[in-house]
């Protein structure tokens, strides 16, 4: 990976030892490099939380916004200058709780931006509270007896809202992740990649998932490739999370809108 994609003088980063965010960021930088994008035309936009500190370590134009608001800021940037490649780095809480409304509307509008969710299943920055992606029964500091709520399925949420490219991957599968990030970035229209990272400090510790290395390696057990999952029974897939490409369709353009008008 090109070291000039990072602002080395800003390191070390703020992330805990064993955090998965660094691997996810590296995968994104790999994707940008492999695509040969002009670094002057890439803008990284983030919200608030551990994930959202990532853009400031990069040497691209970067905008650290408000909690949940990265997507509307990115929308404004992209519409103001459509030549830019605008990538949002966000977390599970940032994108699906406080920013959930913005997420579904950007997907509905099919704004040509890419949203990369560093999904660690909890709010790390504030000490390990439950997010809308925290699995049921999980222990967090705000669900001390286990999470009573059901989580969103972020892939289905984005797809249902109209996203034209949706994928999920995990940082154990770095090539898989880089490949899907590349497809998301080059996709014309709204794209989202649910990127599973470990939080050993809070989620892992509270839920006895082992240390950072164990959490990372365990992804190969509970993340199942979509192509493999298609051959499995629901019983065999219990407790598993499927990774791969879920939506990859043409964008909703004025053409699609006019068709709907004619039908009406």
């Amino acid at each position, binding site marked *: 990976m090109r070291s000039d994609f990072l602002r080395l003088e800003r390191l070390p980063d703020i992330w805990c030892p064993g955090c998965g965010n660094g691997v996810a960021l590296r995968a994104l930088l790999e994707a940008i490099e492999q695509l040969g994008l002009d670094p002057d035309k890439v803008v990284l936009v983030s919200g608030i939380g551990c994930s959202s500190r990532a853009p400031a370590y990069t040497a691209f134009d*970067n905008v650290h916004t408000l909690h949940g608001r990265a997507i509307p*800021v990115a*929308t404004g940037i992209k519409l103001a200058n459509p030549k830019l490649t605008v990538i949002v780095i966000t977390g599970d809480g940032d994108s699906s709780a406080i920013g959930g409304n913005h997420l579904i509307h950007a997907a509905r509008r099919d704004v040509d931006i890419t949203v990369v969710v560093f999904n660690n299943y909890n709010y790390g920055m504030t000490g390990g509270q439950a997010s809308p992606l925290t699995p049921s029964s999980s222990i967090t500091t705000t669900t001390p007896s286990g999470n009573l709520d059901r989580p969103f399925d972020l892939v289905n949420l984005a797809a249902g809202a109209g996203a034209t490219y949706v994928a999920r991957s995990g940082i154990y599968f770095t090539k898989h992740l880089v490949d899907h990030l590349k497809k998301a970035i080059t996709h014309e229209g709204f794209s989202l990649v649910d990127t599973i990272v470990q939080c050993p400090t809070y989620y892992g510790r509270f839920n006895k998932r082992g240390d950072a290395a164990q959490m990372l390696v365990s992804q190969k057990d509970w993340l199942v490739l979509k192509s493999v999952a298609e051959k499995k029974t629901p019983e065999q897939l219990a407790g598993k999370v499927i990774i791969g490409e879920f939506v990859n369709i043409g964008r909703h353009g004025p053409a699609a809108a006019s068709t709907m008008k004619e039908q009406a």
Partner: protein
Amino acid sequence: MSEATVLMQGNEAVAEGAIAAGVRFYAGYPITPSSEIAEIMARRMPQVGGTFIQMEDEIASVTAIIGASMAGKKVLTATSGPGFSLMQEGLGYACMVEAPIVILDSMRYGPSTGMPTKVSQMDLMQTRWGTHGDHWIIVLSPSSVQESYHLAIRAVNLAEKYRNPVILLSDETVSHLREPIDTALPEPIIDRRLPAQKTGYQPFKTDATLVPTIANLGTGFRTTYTGLVHGESGFQTANGHVAETLVQRMRDKLFNNLDDIIRLETDHSDDADILFMSFGITARGVTEAVETLRSRGRKAGSLRFITLFPFDDDRVRQAAGPAKTIVVPELNSGQLVLLLKRVFGDTRRIVPLNKVNGDLISPAEMLTFVREENL
């Protein structure tokens, strides 16, 4: 009347003034009594090569214009009290990242949903103190359709010049008035200062103006923004000295230029013994009340705040002249009057005249008030 004279509604004048000033990006959410601005911009932006987008709420609207501003556009959004409350989060962020943005707030009766079609001046303090933390905002207040046009241009100019959010504080009545206006430009159009040198570029390094240049996103400067306290490099820090320097600079970049920013309009203040101090639509009634009092031999005068914030106590004291009595009519329970009591202490008699039923204060009511209160 020049050839450029046209009949316009207040909201339309804001939209056209903004376009004349170079606004090419509008994001908004419908709300009475500002919706016409979104409707006009939906039609006008494509005509002038600009972009209109209706967002999902006011939080998204204000953050979208911040993004577009960072990418190099002159930007506007418009709203009213309930939406303005939602925009406070973005307004604070715009202060911190020094994004040139203009927000029109057309005041309606509140709190909460209140009376959407009724006028008020109840958002005055929200413009200044609505978002958290120490911050400084420029607030301009039009009293007519003509002035809505002029101040829309001035708001965009000041935002770009000082890298600061500007609030155009209108109200339901001025927004919906229709008056003939002259659309000639009242002042030259100002564009943001761009950085010259990529080598050693520091996003928040300033010269004597204390206003950093803006490297528009995508222009190769690899700039950096955060709502966290940041030094000249733009990178976050928890260093108290850097924080103090930043907050003081954000104040000083405006307060070193009060001659340029502050506009107060006075009428007969030189020899008045009774002076009305007001802003926005209320000042229209004051004009007639002062004329009537003068015609009866009473030494009345007025001071109208065209710039409400930054607020400079010394300038207000100076502009007030010798008047012993200062009447402060406003369509709220007393907001401007709080500032004036601070400015004048016990040196003048400060008399609030408040109306909170959703109607305007008529000149006749002002005259009755003066008579009944023995002012």
